[in-house]
């Protein structure tokens, strides 16, 4: 009676035991498996700010030129050819002609032509599409095609970074596949889920919620990529992503937290690699009230913002959540920038001064330990992304520190996409933002000027407006002399630090975890994944365990 009923179960178990480890490693091409906690939403670059989508897009689509690893974005000396072989400046520097590599072709075989560049520029500048790099290419007047291999960029004025903005902001898209689709319909076009690019990797498959796979394009015009397959292995949370690295199902994960680095020490087949990252984390304060027009009752007051900054022991918070090696951020810029100097002012940790200021500004302490002014309580909500454990923990610490000076704080968690959305729609009071900085200090213009505030776009969500700051930044960006530019930047930085539109928390460098078989190429500070095609996987073969490199993108 019993034995025959058990047969199907035994058969299933046998089947289960057989599948799994593939014993013949040589049959597998070398594979990079990156584990990450966020699925992409759309793979068409102008349509997404999703980190995963950006990484996948960076390997499928090319720019005309790429910044060199030193990230010198002024002039054209620090750039390397990508889709374009070479370029020519006009005598008055008001136009630049790029010469496309004639060997470059789309993954469907069609060669890349100048009208692809014309189309890509138009799409990225279009209001209907709303590309995130739209404001960055505003200094380009137009793009024309002199002949089938020569797109020309036209400017109305010179600027130190005009070459960078022209050649290195937009990724070139296939006009022959996309131009028949109206701009407003691009978002729902099937191309977003099955793209065709010109880059070193071509699209293979996208299993929703599970993985995105790219295969090497062996006919890529700059040489065959060394890694045969790239797989982004998607998990629901950062913990699961790191777990995949430890279990061998992935061989790379972008972001290790301090406790994971300690854990990694116990795995001799894994290594931790530190690399610079241009990232600043801060608590952005929305200076406008919910209606978007009148000043926020708490954060509209400069003195209160300064008081709240002084209520936070930033060094201790960073030590608790991260480690003592992580630097406290000075402002919305990296200490690695040439514009940075250590003489910048810093608001100290001084809770007594904070309380005094709050008293002076009319915030009277109530019996319940919360301050009030004109019937309004010193009560606000911090928005944090649920994908970032560090920021969530930071929020809890901040909540406690604010309580000590009489502020009542709630914490709201939403996932990364919703977090970005809320920020862009200005639907927040305080938000723990992680900003990936442009490789150039002039990026501060995009994020903190009055023009950005008035544009009602995704930038300057806190609506910080300071004419003084605008003036300094403008001078700094226009100055062709580096010493002058640096002093202007110093003034600009000092202004924004004193105005405290955000509480500057920390700068992070990235610690990535990977298998010892993986040899990364240079991990550029703004985009560590840009040279993935040059990475190698040790013995060249991949098993189902270590040996493949999994790239992890995380909205950490």
């Amino acid at each position, binding site marked *: 009676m019993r034995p025959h009923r058990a047969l199907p179960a035994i058969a299933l178990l046998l089947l289960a035991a057989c599948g799994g480890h593939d014993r013949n490693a040589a049959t597998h091409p070398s594979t990079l498996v990156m584990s990450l906690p966020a699925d992409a939403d759309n793979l068409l670059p102008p349509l997404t700010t999703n980190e995963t989508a950006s990484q996948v897009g960076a390997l499928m689509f090319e720019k005309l030129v790429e910044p060199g690893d030193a990230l010198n974005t002024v002039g054209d000396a620090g750039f390397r050819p990508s889709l374009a072989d070479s370029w020519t400046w006009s005598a008055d520097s008001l136009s630049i002609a790029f010469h496309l590599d004639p060997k470059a072709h789309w993954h469907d075989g069609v060669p890349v032509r100048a009208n692809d560049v014309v189309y890509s520029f138009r799409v990225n500048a279009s209001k209907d599409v709303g590309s995130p790099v739209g404001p960055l290419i505003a200094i380009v007047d137009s793009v024309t095609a002199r002949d089938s291999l020569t797109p020309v960029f036209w400017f109305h004025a010179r600027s130190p970074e005009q070459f960078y903005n022209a050649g290195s902001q937009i990724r070139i898209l296939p006009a022959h596949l996309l131009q028949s689709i109206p701009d407003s319909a691009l978002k729902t076009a099937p191309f977003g889920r099955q793209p065709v690019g010109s880059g070193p990797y071509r699209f293979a498959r996208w299993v929703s919620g599970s993985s995105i796979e790219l295969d090497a394009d062996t006919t890529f015009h700059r040489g065959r990529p060394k890694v045969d397959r790239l797989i982004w292995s998607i998990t629901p*949370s950062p*913990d699961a992503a790191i777990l995949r690295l430890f279990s061998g199902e992935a061989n790379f994960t972008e972001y290790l937290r301090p*406790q994971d680095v300690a*854990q990694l020490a116990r795995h001799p087949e894994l290594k931790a690699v530190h690399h610079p990252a241009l990232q600043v984390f801060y608590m952005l304060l929305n200076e406008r009230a919910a209606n978007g027009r009148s000043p926020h009752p708490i954060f509209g007051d400069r003195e209160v913002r300064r008081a709240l900054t002084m209520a936070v022991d930033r060094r201790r918070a960073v030590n*608790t959540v991260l480690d003592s090696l992580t630097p406290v951020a000075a402002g919305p810029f990296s200490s690695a920038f040439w514009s940075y100097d250590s003489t910048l002012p810093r608001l100290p940790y001084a809770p007594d001064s904070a309380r005094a200021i709050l008293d002076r500004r009319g915030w009277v302490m109530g019996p319940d330990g919360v301050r009030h002014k004109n019937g309004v309580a010193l009560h606000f909500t911090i928005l944090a992304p649920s994908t970032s454990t560090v920021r969530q923990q930071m929020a809890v610490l901040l909540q406690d520190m604010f309580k000590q000076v009489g502020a009542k704080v709630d914490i709201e*968690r939403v996932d990364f996409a919703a977090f970005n959305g809320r920020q862009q729609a200005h639907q927040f009071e305080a938000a723990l933002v992680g900003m990936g900085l442009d490789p150039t200090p002039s990026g501060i213009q995009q994020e903190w000027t009055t023009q950005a505030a008035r544009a009602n776009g995704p930038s300057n969500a806190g609506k910080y407006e300071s004419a003084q700051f605008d003036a300094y930044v403008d001078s700094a960006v226009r100055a062709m002399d580096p010493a002058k530019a640096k002093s202007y930047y110093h003034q600009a930085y000092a202004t924004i630090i004193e105005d405290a539109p955000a509480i500057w928390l920390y700068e992070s460098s990235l610690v990535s975890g990977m298998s010892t078989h993986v040899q990364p190429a240079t991990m550029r500070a703004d985009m560590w994944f840009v040279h993935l095609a040059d990475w190698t996987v040790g013995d060249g073969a991949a098993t189902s365990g270590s040996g493949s490199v999994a790239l992890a993108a995380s909205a950490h």
Partner: protein
Amino acid sequence: MFALRWLAAGILVVSLCAALWRLARRRDSGSRFQGALARYAAHPSAVIALAVLIVLYCVAAFAPWLASHDPIEILAPSLVNHAPSATFVFGTDYAGRDVFSRVLYGARLSLTVALLATLISVLIGTAYGVTAGFAGGALDAIMMRIVDAFLAIPRIVLLIAVGTLWSPLSVTSLVIVLGLTAWFATSRLVRAEVLSIKEREMVAAARALGARDLAIVRRHVLPNVLTPVLVAATLGVAGVIINEAALSFLGIGVPDPTPSLGNIIRDGTPYLASAWWVALFPGLALVITALAYNLAGDGLRDAMDPRQVDRS
């Protein structure tokens, strides 16, 4: 000093249990209640479960007195993710908070929420079931179809939908939402009881004598319904506790920094490998509570229904 408090609490609990045991042991016949109590006491598992529940609720009630630290207070950064020790019986979490105190307060909150929500669900379910049972006909059919529909939705899915649409939920709203989603099975039970009572002669007789429906409800329906409803409620509390923990785990239950057993587990999940104590202890607390309620409910069911054939 704080060990003394535990000793005092322990003595109190033991004496309570002893009193209950004496009450059960009394063999003199009389009320149905004492007979039921004696039958209940015959199941050792049910008795232990009841004792555990009493202990849990006493601990929860006296939590502020029994906790070693403040549950929200963030201690020094050097005490982050500390293993269990003499000072921190269950260790500390990522923010340097004492897990033991958090579990005590969390249990207190979770137990209270579950009890209140079950109370709400019993009230709603009974009212609904009585109405449907007495109404009969088309109204009854419609009302029961609605209950069927709700029973077809997995409870956690419904809770997630409501929790997301009305995010963030305050603790009061959480109690109400949990109560509003837990009454369906109760209403079915009550309605079945009402239907069976409607058949009986005494009701027909009462009606003939001119008694109004409400009086019938009060005198005949409610006492008979009390038994199955009590059993269902006891078993239901276990479900509500677990659902509240699930919601807090997902982030749409009890808000930070107030501890609830579910959100302590959530705090401990990123550190499962290195600081497993943060996720382990609240989970054990949940299991013990739910198990106690389940065993107590089973014992109650067997004890209160003498008509049931003894299956044990």
